């Protein structure tokens, strides 16, 4: 029965994707991307990936929509040009689809426990997590400890992307006159909408609190630094949308955000170096405390904190970079 639900959701997913590509209004496309992301997350949930669904929910439906809208406000929302080489493109795409579908007949069936994927490291992680790390959420265990190098790399990619956006968008624009419309105060936010403003202000602390819960409960349930970073960034973005961007920058100035971006990545690296100084390998948490398992717990909490701080900082920096460019 569950697999039928999955099939239904996947069909909706394909329809949404077709509509996104087909529509001419970029604004409609971005809104449909929100639906696409919700569907995607529901699918992840049905496929037993609670952590991934949480990430997709926090990032895809919220932050991604906000960023795309911020870019649309700066570039215009109508697609003008006709598609180029439509027939060739369609031909290539159809042939490739058929080839990939033909290839799938050799793949193991959905949910097959004998599939090659489940033969190698996956079962080992599941088996060793209670013994070596002793936290219930094996996703967090693999993310933070078994594959700590990977995650360190990903954090630095996020960090680099954030720095890149700041570089690109903090250059002074020559084409844009300083203020096209001096009468309108830039970034006023939704001050005229009383109801959302009052309710939104009421909600922000709870969203924040929930972000912290996701951050520190990541060892026991779905959650962790990546998700928490996105949720906390979403809370601040909500504040910026309701009260105006200037107000949000007064609460969390750009300088602080830049420190957060660098500080989180550094905290992650520092945990690794601390392991080396205490006589272990890089990112070896066993030596952080007298008991190896307690050391693992400390290490995972610290690196998740680093991840969370960096993700929050980068997402907010990117948001402010787009917002400062336009008037959103």
């Amino acid at each position, binding site marked *: *029965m*569950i697999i039928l*639900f999955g099939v*239904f*959701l996947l069909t*909706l997913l394909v*329809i*949404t994707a077709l*509509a996104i590509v087909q529509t001419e209004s970029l*604004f*409609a496309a971005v*809104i*449909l991307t*929100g*639906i696409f992301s*919700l*569907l995607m*997350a*529901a699918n992840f*949930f*049905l496929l037993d990936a*609670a952590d991934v*669904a*949480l990430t997709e*929910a*926090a990032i895809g*439906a*919220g932050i991604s*929509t*906000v960023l795309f*809208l911020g870019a*649309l*406000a700066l570039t215009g*929302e109508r697609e003008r040009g006709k598609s180029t080489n439509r027939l060739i493109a369609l031909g290539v795409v159809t042939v490739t689809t058929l080839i990939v579908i033909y290839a799938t007949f050799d793949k193991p069936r959905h949910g097959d426990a004998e599939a090659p994927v489940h033969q190698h490291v996956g079962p080992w992680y599941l088996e060793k997590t209670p013994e070596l790390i002793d936290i219930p959420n094996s996703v967090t265990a693999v993310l933070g400890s078994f594959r700590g190098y990977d995650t360190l790399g990903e954090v630095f990619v996020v960090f680099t992307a954030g720095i890149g956006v700041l570089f690109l968008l903090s250059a002074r624009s020559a084409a844009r006159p300083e203020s*096209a*419309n001096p*009468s*309108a105060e830039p970034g006023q*936010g*939704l001050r005229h*909408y009383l109801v*959302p403003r009052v309710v*939104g202000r009421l*909600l922000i602390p709870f*969203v924040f609190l*929930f972000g912290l819960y*996701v951050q520190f*409960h990541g060892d026991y*349930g*779905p*959650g962790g630094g990546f998700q928490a970073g996105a*949720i906390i960034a*979403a809370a601040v*973005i*909500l504040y910026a*949308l*309701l009260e105006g961007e200037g107000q949000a920058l007064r609460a969390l100035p750009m300088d602080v955000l830049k420190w957060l971006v660098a500080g989180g990545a550094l905290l992650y690296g520092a945990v690794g170096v601390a392991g080396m100084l205490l006589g272990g390998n890089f990112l070896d948490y066993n030596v952080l405390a007298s008991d190896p398992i307690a050391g693992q717990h400390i290490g995972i909490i610290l690196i998740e904190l680093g991840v969370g701080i960096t993700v929050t900082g980068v997402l907010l920096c990117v948001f402010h970079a787009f917002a400062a460019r*336009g*008037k*959103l």
Partner: protein
Amino acid sequence: MYYAVTLATLVTMALALVRALLGPSIYDRILAVNMFGTKTVLFLSVVAFLFGRPDFLDLALVYAMINFIGVIAVLEFIRVRAENDISEKGAGS
């Protein structure tokens, strides 16, 4: 019984999707997204019980929050766009 409720939410998600595709105005699309979000929250809550893992309700909570933020962001975008339109017309005349 859980299955029946899940089925109802799934069908409604499809209906909301049709509304989002048809439009016609942007507000209809936003309405559809908002509706879709609420239905996803209900879907997740019910399916979490169906799976016997009710600790995954955290997910539904995140959805409820993020959905609201998304709608607010879209409205803010529309407001900014309307203001820009007015100021451009003012400059043109």
